[in-house]
C-alpha cells in the first residue's frame, strides 16, 4: 500500500497536490464569517464606475495631473540613476571579475557583496521609505534613497550575472597582453556586456515609474499622492483621470524601453 502510494505520488501529481493544498490553506485563512463587501460597497462600486463617464477634464485639474506625472517621472529617474550608480560597482564586485586569480579571500569578498545585495532587495522600497522617514525625516531625498536601495540590489545582482556571462576568449586575449584587472574590466567586460546592461536598466525604468507613483504613500507628491487625495474626497471622476495619466505614463515608458531593448538585441 505504502509503496503504491509512493509510486503514485511523483512529480506532477505531488506538485498539483502541493498547489491545491497551498491554495486551500490560504483560502482557509480568509475571514469568511464577515461579509466580503462593506455594507454599501456595491453601491460605491457602481458610483465609481459611473464616474468614468466622463472623467474630470477641467483645465485646472489636468494641470495638476501633468505636474503630478512630472513629479513621478522625476523621482523615478532620480531613483533609477542613483540605483545604477550604486548597483554597478556592487555588481562588479559581486561578479568577481576584478580578481586576478581565485583565492579564498576573494571568494568570501564576492560572496559578502552578494549577501549585501540580497539584503538590499529583500525589503520593499516602501518599507525602506517608512524606515527612512522615521530615521531621517520626510523629504524627497529619503524617498529617492528608499527606492534606490532595493533597485540597486536587483540591478547589482543582474549586472553581476551579465558580467559573468561575457565570452571568455576576448578576456583571455586581453589578459595575455598583460592588462591589469581594471583595464580588463574597462576594455573587456564592460563594453561586451554594455548592451545587456543597458537593456536591463531600461526594463527596470518601467518598474521604477510604478514604484515612484506609490512613493506618495509616505507623502511624496506624484500621481499616487493625488489618487489618495481624490479618493479621500470621494472625487471618483478625478481618480479616473489620474489613473488614465498613470497608465499613459507607464505605457509610454514601456514603449520606449521596448524600443531600446529591441535596438540592442542581437
Amino acid at each position, binding site marked *: 500500500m505504502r509503496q503504491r502510494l509512493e509510486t503514485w505520488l511523483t512529480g506532477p501529481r505531488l506538485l498539483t497536490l502541493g498547489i491545491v493544498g497551498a491554495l486551500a490553506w490560504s483560502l482557509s485563512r480568509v475571514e469568511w464569517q464577515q461579509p466580503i463587501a462593506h455594507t454599501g*460597497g456595491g453601491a460605491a*462600486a457602481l458610483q*465609481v464606475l459611473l464616474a468614468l463617464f466622463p472623467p474630470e477634464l477641467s483645465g485646472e485639474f489636468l494641470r495638476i495631473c501633468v505636474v503630478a506625472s512630472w513629479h513621478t517621472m522625476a523621482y523615478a529617474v532620480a531613483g533609477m540613476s542613483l540605483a545604477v550608480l550604486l548597483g554597478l560597482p556592487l555588481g562588479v564586485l559581486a561578479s568577481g571579475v576584478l580578481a586576478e586569480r581565485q583565492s579564498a579571500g576573494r571568494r568570501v569578498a564576492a560572496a559578502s557583496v552578494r549577501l549585501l545585495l540580497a539584503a538590499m532587495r529583500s525589503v520593499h522600497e516602501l518599507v525602506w521609505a517608512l524606515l527612512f522617514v*522615521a*530615521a531621517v525625516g520626510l523629504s524627497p531625498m529619503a524617498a529617492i534613497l528608499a527606492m534606490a536601495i532595493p533597485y540597486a540590489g536587483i540591478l547589482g545582482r543582474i549586472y553581476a550575472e551579465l558580467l559573468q556571462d561575457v*565570452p571568455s576568449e576576448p578576456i583571455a586575449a586581453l589578459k595575455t597582453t598583460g592588462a591589469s584587472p581594471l583595464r580588463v574590466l574597462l576594455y573587456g567586460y564592460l563594453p561586451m556586456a554594455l548592451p545587456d546592461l543597458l537593456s536591463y536598466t531600461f526594463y527596470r525604468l518601467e518598474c521604477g515609474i510604478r514604484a515612484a507613483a506609490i512613493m506618495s504613500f509616505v507623502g511624496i507628491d506624484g500621481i499616487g499622492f493625488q489618487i489618495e487625495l481624490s479618493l479621500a474626497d470621494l472625487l471618483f471622476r478625478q481618480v479616473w483621470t489620474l489613473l488614465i495619466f498613470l497608465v499613459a505614463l507607464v505605457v509610454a515608458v514601456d514603449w520606449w524601453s521596448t524600443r531600446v531593448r529591441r*535596438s540592442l538585441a542581437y
Partner: protein
Amino acid sequence: MERTGAEQTRPQGQARQRISTLRWSVYVAMLLTAAAWGFILLDGDSGFGDLFRERTWQNAGRFVAGLAGAGTDGASSFAQPGRWLETGRLALNTLAMSVLAMGIAGGGALALLMPGARTVSDGTLGGSPSRAGRGVYAAVRVFYMLTRAIPELVWAMLIVFFLSPGILPGALALGIHNLGIVGRLTSEVVENLDPAPARALRAAGASGPKVLLYGVFPQALPMFLTFLLYRWEVVIRTTVVVGFLNAGGLGREFRLRMSWFHYDEVGLLLAWYLLLVVAVDVLSAQLRRRVRWE
C-alpha cells in the same frame, strides 16, 4: 548571443535606424536625469542637505537602536515569546495572502491563456482564424496592459473601498496586478512554442480543450510555473506594503506600530518579514529547479 546568418545580412538601413534609436534614447535619458535631479535639488526642501548633518545621523542611530529594542519601557518585544507567537500569526496571514494572490494571478492567466495568444486567434496552432478571436485577443492584451500598469498599492486603495478589510482585498490587489504580468509572459510563451503538436492534434480531429491539454500545456506549463514562482518572490515582499491599507497581515500592524513609535515591535515585525522573504526565496528556487527537471 549567437548571430544567425539571416540576422547578419540584415539590411543596412535597419541597422542604422537601430543605432539612431539608441542614440536619441541615451540623449533623452541623460537629459531626463539632469532635469530630474535639477528639479529635485532646486525645488525647495529636497532634504539633500540634511544627509550631511550630524543630527540626522544621530536620529537614525537612535531609530536603529530602537528597532533592536533599546529604550523600551520594560522587556522589549524580542524578549517576549508571546509577542513572537502573536506576530507569527500575522506572518502566516501574510504568507496566505501571497499564496492566494498567486492563485488569483495564476488561475486568471491560465483561463486567458488561449485567447491571449496571437497564434491561437490567427490559426497558427491549427483551427481557422476568426475576427472574433482577434477581437478577444486584443481585448485580453489591453486588459493585461491596464492591470499591469496600475501598481498593486493603487489597486489596493481602490479595492479596500468596497471589500471588508482582511487578507482577501490585499490578495485581490496583488493578484490583479500580477495577472497582467504573468498573463502577458505566458501568452508570449504560447506564441513562441512549437506549433507542430497542436496542429497535428487539430488535424487528427481533437477538440479545443484536448489541443490545449495535450498540445499546449506540456510545452508551456514549466515556463508558466517558473514565472509564477519568480513573481511569488516579488509578491511576498509586496504583501506587507498592501497590508498598510487595512488589508491584514504584517503590514497593517507594521504601520500602526510605526505611528505609535513602538520601534521594538516594528523590529520584531521586520524580523518576521525578512524570515518570510528568505523562506519564500529558498522555496521558490527549489521548486523552480524541480519544475525545470520535469
